């Protein structure tokens, strides 16, 4: 009886240890050089991304210079260039300057393993919609221009805007009439009221006389869109 108990216990312990070893082996196989190497790889990729973005800006400036040179001659060409530049501003391809508001949403560490804003990304859509109702002319979230192609997604426990991950504090900046924009957001029972009182987060709105919103590098070319009638 005792012998069987010992044997049973040994087999049980061996099974547990076996499973543990198998799972460790799987981790080691997938991440052979450990966490630090992976972080280093991420940092390298980030640096590379920044380099590319700088190169894009340099090319954009060269492009503008050449386009300006064509301005000198024809009046129609000048009008075309002005309209293209206006559209590029609207599309977020150019830096935007002007007065506006800065909304800051801060998450505390009430839930260390969960982001309340990541769980409630639709609140951000609502904030932008309120800003648009108040005639915002350009919007960005944590430095990412919000355009007609922008998406706000929960990825893991953080938020991605235009594919870039952002975290607390979330800073939304909008160019437009500061009084009108602030009034739309601060309406009693409105969107900021909901963030403060229903989500329990800290929110502040600051009116600014001048701010600069970063440009968004043009996205990939359309694959399906054609001009219509």
């Amino acid at each position, binding site marked *: 009886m005792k012998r069987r108990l010992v044997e049973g216990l040994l087999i049980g312990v061996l099974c547990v240890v076996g499973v543990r070893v198998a799972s*460790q082996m799987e981790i080691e196989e997938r991440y052979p050089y450990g966490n630090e190497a992976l972080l280093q790889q991420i940092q390298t990729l980030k640096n590379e991304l920044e380099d590319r973005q700088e190169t894009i800006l340099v090319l954009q400036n060269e492009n503008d210079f050449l386009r300006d040179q064509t301005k000198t001659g024809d009046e129609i060409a000048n009008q075309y260039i002005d309209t*293209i530049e206006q559209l590029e501003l609207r599309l977020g391809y150019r830096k935007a300057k002007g007065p506006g508001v800065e909304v800051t949403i801060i998450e505390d560490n009430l839930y260390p393993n969960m982001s309340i804003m990541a769980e409630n990304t639709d609140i951000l859509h*609502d904030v932008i919609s309120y800003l648009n109702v108040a005639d915002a002319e350009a919007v960005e979230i944590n430095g990412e221009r919000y355009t*007609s192609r*922008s*998406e706000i997604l929960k990825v893991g426990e953080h938020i991605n805007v235009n594919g870039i991950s952002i975290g607390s504090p979330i800073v939304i900046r909008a160019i437009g009439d500061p009084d009108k924009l602030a009034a739309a957001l601060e309406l009693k029972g409105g969107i900021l009221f909901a963030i403060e009182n229903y989500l329990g987060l800290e929110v502040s709105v600051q009116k600014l006389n001048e701010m600069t919103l970063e440009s968004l590098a043009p996205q990939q070319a359309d694959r399906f869109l054609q001009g*219509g009638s």
Partner: protein
Amino acid sequence: MKNKQRMFVFIAAIVLGFCLIWIVRVQEARISESQKAELQRLESRMEVIANLIQTREQTLKERKEVLLSYQNLSDQRETLTYLEDELEHKRILSGREAVKGPGILIKVNDRSDTGEQVEMFDLVHNTDILNIVNDLRAAGAEAISIEGERVTWRSKIQCGGPIIWVNDESTTAPFVMKVIGEPSVLYAAVTAPNTYTELLRSVYNLEVLVRVSENLEILGYEGGE
């Protein structure tokens, strides 16, 4: 019999010893089960960054082509033609021009089997439309309209009591959305399990119909700047 038992214990102890040493060695390599989730999160970030770099590379290529085109412009007529093309392209991107292409049609309607008692969840709200638009953008939508109103970078999709404002037009249920993009990806974005639109249908019993179309036409935004 006793010898057999001793042999079994002996072999088991050796195997156990090897396993324990293996675990300790792996722990020393600073990879533990608890880090697995963190590593996976980092890997997904790496993937996002790698995709962004790919996008930027494409942009660089396009920019270089644009620069070359400017440098090669030989006369005024050629310049104007080039600028006209660029202007049209930018107007298409900004939603000012009518566009056509393949995509999907979505119809979202209030719940129809409620009887006299209607709850908030039985109706389509502006937040539902905002969420659907966001999911479609994430799926690469290139143009979207709601009840014929083009969704642009500054579209208002706001609650107006019994109606929803889209741009400056009032719209009511059912809401028909036209979306141009890769049809299969767009279709999956609104029908796959756990997508927002699918939850509206399966959990809240709202009427959701999705149809693929090879040729959709979406009008341009006609409102003010």
